[in-house]
């Protein structure tokens, strides 16, 4: 028993030393997480197809992704080169590496347009802010999305006003039940989500979106969002869309009490 105890004690000491030596001063691979891959898509809404590309330049790392809404696991398809999406879907991806913790997920919606309304006639009041006029009002129906890199972009219409009124005349009558506004939120850059969007046909309110959390602090830096507004199902020729900006940047923000920015790049009907 004594010998056995001695032997075990030695083994214990040995194993402790080993533990100390390997855990030691330096950071261990298992404690470090990979960064999510960066993605590029030519437009998050599209008529026929959109091409998705991921980037993550680190040796022996693997990007895995799904387009069917399922969680990304080590068994999901391996990304090797850019691919096309041809219908509406949610694209998700993560980076895997045998030494490091798997990255956070990157995910985004890609939406196939049901109707081409690129010939719609649009007026907007007030006009967008100087640097964010995109290619004029037509940009709202051009099937081209902006990205989070909104500076020097020709896709985003940015407004620094309390309220924006968009009048939209469709090129032909359409039976519709939904209107979708694509917008960006980037609170660090003073860009907030709208507080309310009201959709009128003539003077009749046909649909409304209320956002109770527009003033709350969002996790993460910036996001692109489709705001879906159900409308009374009917045949329509034109709409008036009134977008209500948050009145003031909330108190928790460094720019408290300033007027926030509102960024939209597309109006979609279904």
């Amino acid at each position, binding site marked *: 028993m004594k010998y056995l105890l001695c032997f075990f004690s030695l083994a*214990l000491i040995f*194993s402790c030393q080993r533990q100390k030596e*390997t855990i030691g001063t330096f950071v*261990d691979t*298992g404690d*470090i997480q990979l960064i999510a891959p960066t993605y590029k898509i030519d437009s998050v809404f599209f008529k026929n197809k959109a091409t998705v590309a991921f*980037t993550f*330049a680190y040796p022996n790392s693997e990007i895995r992704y799904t387009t069917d809404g399922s969680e990304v696991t080590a068994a999901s398809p391996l990304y090797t080169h850019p691919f096309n999406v041809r219908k509406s879907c949610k694209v998700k991806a993560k980076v895997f590496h045998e030494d490091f913790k798997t990255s956070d997920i990157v995910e985004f919606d890609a939406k196939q347009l049901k109707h081409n309304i690129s010939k719609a006639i649009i007026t907007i009041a007030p006009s967008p802010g100087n640097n964010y006029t995109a290619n004029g009002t037509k940009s709202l129906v051009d099937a081209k999305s902006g990205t989070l890199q909104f500076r020097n972009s020709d896709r985003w219409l940015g407004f620094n006003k309390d309220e924006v009124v968009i009048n939209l005349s469709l090129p032909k009558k359409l039976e519709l039940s939904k209107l979708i506004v694509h917008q960006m939120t980037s609170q660090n850059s003073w860009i907030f989500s709208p507080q309310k969007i009201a959709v009128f046909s003539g003077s009749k309110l046909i649909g409304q979106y209320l956002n109770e959390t527009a003033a709350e602090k969002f996790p993460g830096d910036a996001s692109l969002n489709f705001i879906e507004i159900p409308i009374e199902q009917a045949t329509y020729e034109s709409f008036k869309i009134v977008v209500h900006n948050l009145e003031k940047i909330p108190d928790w923000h460094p720019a408290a009490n300033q007027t926030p920015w509102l960024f939209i790049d597309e109006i979609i009907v279904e």
Partner: protein
Amino acid sequence: MKRRNFIQNSSLATAGILFGSPVLNAMELYKDVIIGHNNHKYKVDLNWGALNSNFYPVNNCHEMVQDSKGRIILLTDDTKNNVIVYDKSGKLIEAWGTEYPGAHGLTLNVENGKDFLYIADNKRHEVIKTTIDGKVVQVFKFPKESGKYDDPAKYIPTETAIAANGDVYVADGYGSQYIMHYNEKGELLNTFGGRGTEDHLFGNAHGIVIDTRNNADPTLLITDRMQNKFKRFSMDGKYLSTTHLPGAYVCRPVIHKENIYTATIWSGDGSMGTGFISILDGENKLVSAPGGSTPTYNDDGTLQPMHQALKIFQNPHDVCIDDDDNLYIAQWNSGKTYPIKLTRV
């Protein structure tokens, strides 16, 4: 009885270790992270220089230098101790400085065999020269005489560089983007730069250094962080050339042997909380990016956009290289953490 229980339990645990329990297998997998590329690879020590924050607090750790005695000097904007002096192992030697609320830029210059520090304070809107133990010897005040400023608030110096002849250059990196060129007496000789996107102008002239790698022909290397560029100027302020590092929001360039080192505060699209370290070779090509993606150049000589790869750094703001080629990383807005040491392997 108790003792026997203990023995039995520990024996069991030991047996578990011996016979390869999952615990042991997990331990076997411990592997030090090695970051960086080519000949510049490092192990990471996140605990280097950690002190009791009740006594020696840091806010933003802005910049670090090594002095002639081999000590590592940290500049922070916590006015309880703006300057914290460590040995290379991270042991505290001394701390001083309560008068530098906007302590941002730290440059060490040896003058007649003595070390001096130049502190660019972006809240005081001036640069202060001190002895190595903190005695103020000269103040470079708001440069009204430049004719470029109607208000001291528009002058927010971030960095200094001192030439062999004693001339002092100051980068107004958070202000109006001018570069001030003084003689050693503090007389303004020249002002150049200014805000803009053209080659000779700056979006954020965050750092400046004198590139002495070609001894016969020293030049100024000035950061344009917003444009992800280092811009080279003659000593009299003429624009010469640009090194573009897409995706790398570079802070001040630091020259060590044949390399340029720089903390890259953000990466990719400039999102906060990201960042890595950049190391350029003698040809000003990015050869190693500890914590970042693998640097890859296209056939036309342009660098593919860089991005953070591993979550190690959070807004790294400066890099100090010691005489053993190890690195010390000061971080901005990282939750008041002390510097990170990278040990070269």
